[in-house]
């Protein structure tokens, strides 16, 4: 299944979820993605297809990867896509190649200010079908109280997430809300609905509160506060991070960290209405199922409430959900709102698209000009 939504239902049946996109990012960060991508391209995937899919296809339909092993054959494939159309293909391929039944959850993209009643009814009906598929698979009867309890645990972890993100309104921010928030995405997306996730965020909140008190951040001196849009280049995660750190630039908010749910504006899973709140979260309370213009609003709020100096857009070729139209986003922020905006390009999975020297030049030039502007203002 896809991390970030409706995992609560599978947990209520003690089903152990596995997340193909988490495989993909793990492989990239371990620098193991390229041979798998090439293997997938031999199978017929195009060089223009999303490399997350290709790395996972090379891994899952092939022999796994050295030192990582192989993913055991799943009993059920749940395509709980929101927003991204590529997932439909990806999970269809998984079902076809692995010969495993597929449950498709079709979540209508948000077209207006909020989902329609028809959308909510449609999603709830599909969640009920998922529940019956899980009952058949596990031979267990669905227990609504169990689901309520899981939703309660989810909500507690979501509280912790919001608190961590809120603490970044402080100067200096206690964590980098892009690079470190990506680490927090593990527990919030993969462990949500468990006590482990709750405990994790209790510890994290305590640590960050301490840092705020001591006026400490992830780097010695916070000089620039930025909002980052788009996924990171996982194969060059460290190098990419260092390019910003060397300028004293800290992310105070990021959109990518909200792909599995936007918790910082207050939405929570509701133990009283578990199914409806799960449907609501899939439909509305995550970045992917909202329009590009809603994303502009989200970023604008980030820039204003988190007092950012700049917007950095990392445009990745693989992920069109994110990248298609980011030129328009740059135009909106830079020209209409006057927010200094940098757009750089590479990929989140395919190392062939990352050019360190070019990346460094672009980032250096951008922060140099920000610094210059700041000096001029002071003068």
């Amino acid at each position, binding site marked *: 299944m896809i991390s970030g939504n409706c995992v609560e239902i599978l947990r209520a049946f003690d089903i152990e979820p596995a997340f193909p996109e988490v495989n993909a990012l793990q492989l990239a960060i371990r620098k193991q993605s390229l041979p798998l991508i090439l293997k997938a391209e031999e199978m017929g995937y195009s060089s223009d297809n999303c490399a997350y899919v290709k790395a996972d296809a090379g891994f899952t339909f092939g022999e796994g990867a050295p030192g990582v092993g192989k993913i055991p054959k799943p009993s059920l494939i749940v395509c709980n896509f929101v927003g991204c159309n590529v997932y439909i293909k990806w999970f269809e391929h998984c079902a076809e190649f692995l010969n495993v039944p597929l449950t498709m959850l*079709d979540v209508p993209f948000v077209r207006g200010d909020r989902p329609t009643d028809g959308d909510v009814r449609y999603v709830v009906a*599909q969640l009920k079908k998922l529940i019956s598929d899980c009952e058949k698979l596990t031979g267990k009867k669905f227990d609504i109280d169990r689901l309520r309890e899981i939703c309660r645990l989810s909500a507690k972890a979501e509280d912790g997430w919001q608190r961590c993100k809120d603490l970044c309104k402080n100067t200096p921010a206690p964590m980098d809300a892009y690079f470190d928030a990506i680490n927090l995405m593990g527990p919030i997306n993969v462990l949500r609905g468990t006590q482990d996730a709750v405990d994790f965020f209790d510890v994290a909140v305590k640590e960050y509160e301490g840092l705020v008190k001591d006026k400490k951040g992830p780097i010695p001196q916070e000089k620039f506060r930025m909002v980052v849009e788009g996924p990171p280049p996982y194969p060059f995660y460290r190098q990419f991070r260092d390019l910003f750190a060397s300028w004293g630039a800290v992310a105070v908010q990021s959109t990518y960290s909200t792909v599995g749910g936007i918790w910082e504006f207050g939405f929570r899973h509701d133990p009283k209405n578990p199914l409806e709140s799960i449907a609501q979260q899939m439909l509305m309370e995550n970045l992917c199922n909202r329009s590009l213009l809603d994303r502009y609003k989200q970023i604008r709020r980030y820039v204003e409430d988190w007092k950012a100096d700049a917007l950095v857009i990392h445009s990745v070729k693989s992920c069109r959900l994110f990248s*298609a139209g*980011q030129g328009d986003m740059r135009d909106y922020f830079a020209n209409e709102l006057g927010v200094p905006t940098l757009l750089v390009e590479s990929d989140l999975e395919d190392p062939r698209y990352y050019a360190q020297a070019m990346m460094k030049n672009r980032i250096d030039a951008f922060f140099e000009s920000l610094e210059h502007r700041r000096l001029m203002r002071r003068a």
Partner: protein
Amino acid sequence: METSPAVEQARAVLAAGLAPALKRSDAPAFGCFPVYSPFELYRAAGLLPVGLMGAGGTVDIVHADARFQSFVCSIAKSSLELGLQKRLAGMEGEVFHSICDFARNLASVFRRNFPTMHIEYIHLPQNAPGPEIEDYLVSEFRRVMAGLEQRLGRRVEDAAVGAAIREYNRPRRLMRELYAMRAKEPERISSSELFPLVRCGTLLPPDEHARILEAAKGEFAARKARRMDRVKVVVEGAFCELPPQGLIETLEGAGCYLVDDDFCAGWRWFSTDVPEGPDPVRQLARAWLERGRATSTRYNPDKPRHKDLVRRVREHGAQAVLFMPAKFCEPALFDYVVYRRELEKENIPHLLVEFEEKMWTFERTRGEVETFVESLLFDVRMGIGMGGTGWGTHSGTWTSGDTGWRNTELQCTRPRARRCRTGTTGSPRRRRAAPRPPTS
């Protein structure tokens, strides 16, 4: 082959582009991005649905490159460019659908850049037909109607939707008849003719389109035609962005009879008429679910696309599949993996021909397709049958764009398994795909 006045008329409509539709006084134009759109709803609102299907090679991309990166398909960029160059002035609105991530984000970019247009986005469901999905789709169509009512300040009546269904059933039925005629006697109606005949319907009211199709049907039926030594192929993958006319002529010139294709798939969506019973909005929704095409932008486990492709190949007696995705078209490129696997299982030869709407040289494609065709014809002569797997891929074009992507387009272009059999890279005998005596 004699020229057809109806085809000439269709070509003239296409040559004039969107401009005449934007100037019509009877019904304001409403742009529909591919693939399928419920045209009847806009028609019932007194509008003229027209296809916003890119610009072919007719515009230079000046502004759209700053909005969309180099790895975005041509149709998305050129459609936006038309707007940014103010060539869509007069368009009442524009509708996009849940076909891919580009189209979805394009809807947002349109909304921001053209605030006076009525921008609609329809989520067409991705699942097997059933009561819940049908209710959802009805609610979605009703939402669209309510949006139009609000915009235009008038009611969109169910009865008018029913009338529009009747109107559109006519050209759709005629297109099905022409397709059937071509499949049976491809020598009687060439694809270079059928393509403009179908495509011109994206710019015309349904009755005007039907008149042209009707005339064409009469002309074709009266024609004397001679079967040539060509290979029957099914074309799949060009359901959204359209290939240039020259590419279709190239395929035919290289020795193919196209017996089925998915050009303008959304305008020929249904396998039968849409039923004209009571509750027309529900009829339309149900028809979409149950009588729609198996195409890459729709997930329907009841009608797997790769199985449907094989069925069409068999039904039409085709010898091969030309898989023709638009450059950067994610849904098509992903499906290629599954199609290829299935075709190889079924021993159906196939060739990948990537295209872009704005491509204008076809030499390389011609060479590839000729080689492919000749080898198939050779097999037929030698009685080898339809065996053979794994023709290599061919990429028609590559544009690296200007935002710094490196060209990693390195698809192999050589026939693989086939080479082993013949001991050459391709056909043992090169021939021109010129008229030849009929094969028996």
